[in-house]
């Protein structure tokens, strides 16, 4: 039920945006609950955008994880189970 799918905003008319979910699926989405511009990504739940997402954020998160996980690999004192 709490499923939300990210998609890219193609155009905006009033409180409704055309959003591209990939694979040619383009749907009208109500954007009353967010402030968003064309070209940004939104997270969509039951036809309403609930958050604006940055593609960069996802990449930065993963880069950070890689760094954290590898640092632990190199520091024996951080590996209590090793």
């Amino acid at each position, binding site marked *: 039920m709490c499923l939300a799918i990210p998609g890219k905003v193609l155009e905006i008319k009033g409180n409704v945006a055309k959003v591209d979910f990939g694979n040619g699926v383009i749907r009208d989405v109500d954007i009353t609950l967010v402030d968003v511009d064309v070209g940004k990504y939104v997270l969509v739940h039951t036809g309403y955008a609930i958050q604006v997402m940055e593609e960069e*954020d996802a990449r930065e998160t993963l880069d950070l994880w890689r760094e954290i996980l590898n640092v632990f690999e190199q520091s024996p004192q951080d590996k209590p189970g090793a």
Partner: protein
Amino acid sequence: MRRLDANSPFRDHEISDLLVRRIREIAPSDPLKLCHVCGTHEWTITHSGLRSLLPESVSLIAGPGCPVCIVPAQEIDEAVWLALNGVTVVTFGDMYRVPGSEFSLEDAKSRGGDVRVVYSVRDAAEMASNGPGMDFVFFAIGFETTAPMNAVEVPRSPENLSFLVSHRLIPPAIDFLAEMEDLNIDGVIAPGHVSTVIGMRPYGRFPEEYGMPTVIAGFEPLDVLMGVYMLLRQIESGSPRLENEYSRAVTYEGNVKAQAAVDEVFDAVDGAWRGLGEIPSSALQLKEEFSGKDARERFEIDVGLGRDVYPGCSCPQVIIGKITPDECPLFMRACTPEKPKGACMVSREGTCNIWAIHSPL
């Protein structure tokens, strides 16, 4: 299939291998229980086989995270009553087959009631606009993720659309789980999309008051594994705190516009959860000024107290993670996805349904 770049990297094998290794290194040998409260998390965990990747000492249990499973039978009976008394009931597909005391909305339809399944409350508003002279009721279920949509539509929807509100709130349910003496949860994976709306603040009390490690996590397999790892790090260091794994969709403040919309239209009140009983301040009710849009005010709905649990069904124990679905005597015997007895087997987000479809038996 082309996936959006914001999520596809979160299935990276290299990172998942590393994460599983770290989890195994850090996991204590004493058993511990990590609880999530989201049907979508359970889907990811079971569908991706994440439990099989974890050390035996780490149990991932499913709390009351399926919003249709926890709607009391009495409130489904109200929807069924409306459908059988000339009102068009509009609902999400997840709710369509969930049994009330006796009947589901699907049963009501087969008895001549007008029940329509939609993807969004916008569809209900559009139907009401196109059907003047008819009474429409939207069965407003769901957690904090779904309440803002109804908060937007209540003031602006056509006069002939009212709302049967059965929203429930997640943080009070976590209080309920944390306070259960015989459940003994060691950490909570908080639901990502509920948190997109409410932000991080409402979870602060779990580490502070209960000493409960709490991590907000997203829904890709890597998100859940990282959430588990972050909880284990907290448990290992003995410093419970609130962390946000799903930072690409959850901010500290959450969606302030959505919160304001909900606050304008709803009050938090005590509410019953199916099979669990009443949880303080865990339900939403339309404010007095919107009582004209409240289906319970508009129609003289006549239903009894409701029977939440089918005889022999263990949904109340499954819902709080006290037992797993395969420990219920009805699971895959008298109760199957085709012929469900309990709410947890009906919904695609019910723990029993997910286990029935995705677990090796």
